[in-house]
């Protein structure tokens, strides 16, 4: 199948191949959900098996910083939606501006996570108890996905500036937006599992 370069193929072919890629990308996100689901199962299993939770000597992560950090991430989901709306209505500056905002907010989220890991959890280590094992593995995996997402967004932003995407042909942007929403939704679950439950 010829690569659906935005300039080299007919509109009908681009639309058809984009349909394939969309389904493939959604399947990829579903399998990624399964990975998170597996680690979440492990966390709940270990938590259920533990006599005390958090284990002795382990502090709970700081709730209110995480709450603010969550809003930063959720807000970035909203900005990304409006970025896509800009591309769909051929308003490039709207797309560029909101995508930049998303990148900034996503990076702020990562900064918040890094601060939490290094300053707010002095007794909780990855290799210490099952609390640290579950917490750092799951939030770390999520943070890694956010990091990849930020890279993805920077790449599509640069591609947009080079003119790769148009109002009609922008599958890469659709994929980046869906990925960003996915990362957001996973955090909804993780925030509940570690800070509320």
């Amino acid at each position, binding site marked *: 199948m010829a690569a659906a370069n935005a300039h080299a193929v007919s509109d009908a072919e681009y639309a058809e191949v984009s*349909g394939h890629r*969309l*389904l493939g990308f*959604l399947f990829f996100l579903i399998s990624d959900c399964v990975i998170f689901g597996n680690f979440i199962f492990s966390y709940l299993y270990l938590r259920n098996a533990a006599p005390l939770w958090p284990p002795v000597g382990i502090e*709970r992560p*700081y*709730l*209110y*910083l995480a*709450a*603010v950090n*969550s*809003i*930063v991430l*959720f*807000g970035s*989901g*909203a900005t990304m*939606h*409006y970025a896509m*709306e800009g591309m769909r209505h051929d308003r490039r500056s709207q797309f560029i501006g909101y995508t930049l905002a998303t990148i900034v907010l996503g990076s702020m989220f990562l900064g918040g996570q890094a601060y939490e890991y290094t300053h*707010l959890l002095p007794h909780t280590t990855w290799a210490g108890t099952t609390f640290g094992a579950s917490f750092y593995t799951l939030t770390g995996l999520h943070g890694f996905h956010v990091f990849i997402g930020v890279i993805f967004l920077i790449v599509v932003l640069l591609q947009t500036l080079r003119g790769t995407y148009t109002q009609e042909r922008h599958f890469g942007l*659709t994929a980046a*937006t*869906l990925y960003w*929403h*996915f990362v*957001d*939704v996973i*955090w*909804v679950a993780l*925030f*509940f599992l570690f*800070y*509320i*439950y």
Partner: protein
Amino acid sequence: MLESIPTELRIIAFIGAVIVAVVALIALRGEWPKTRLEDHVTKIMMVLLTVGCIEVMLVAIGTIGRVK
């Protein structure tokens, strides 16, 4: 240091959650009539985003969320 700022953080979290939730619901209303697969996925994401904001709102006012 941390003991003095939880109230500020809670206020920021609550107001932020309200703003983002409202924006998400407005976006949802705009997306509602669209029919393609990626639009359905976007709608689901907006709903879940709103759920997340409600989570944060309830945490900010102290109804749920474990501090200890």
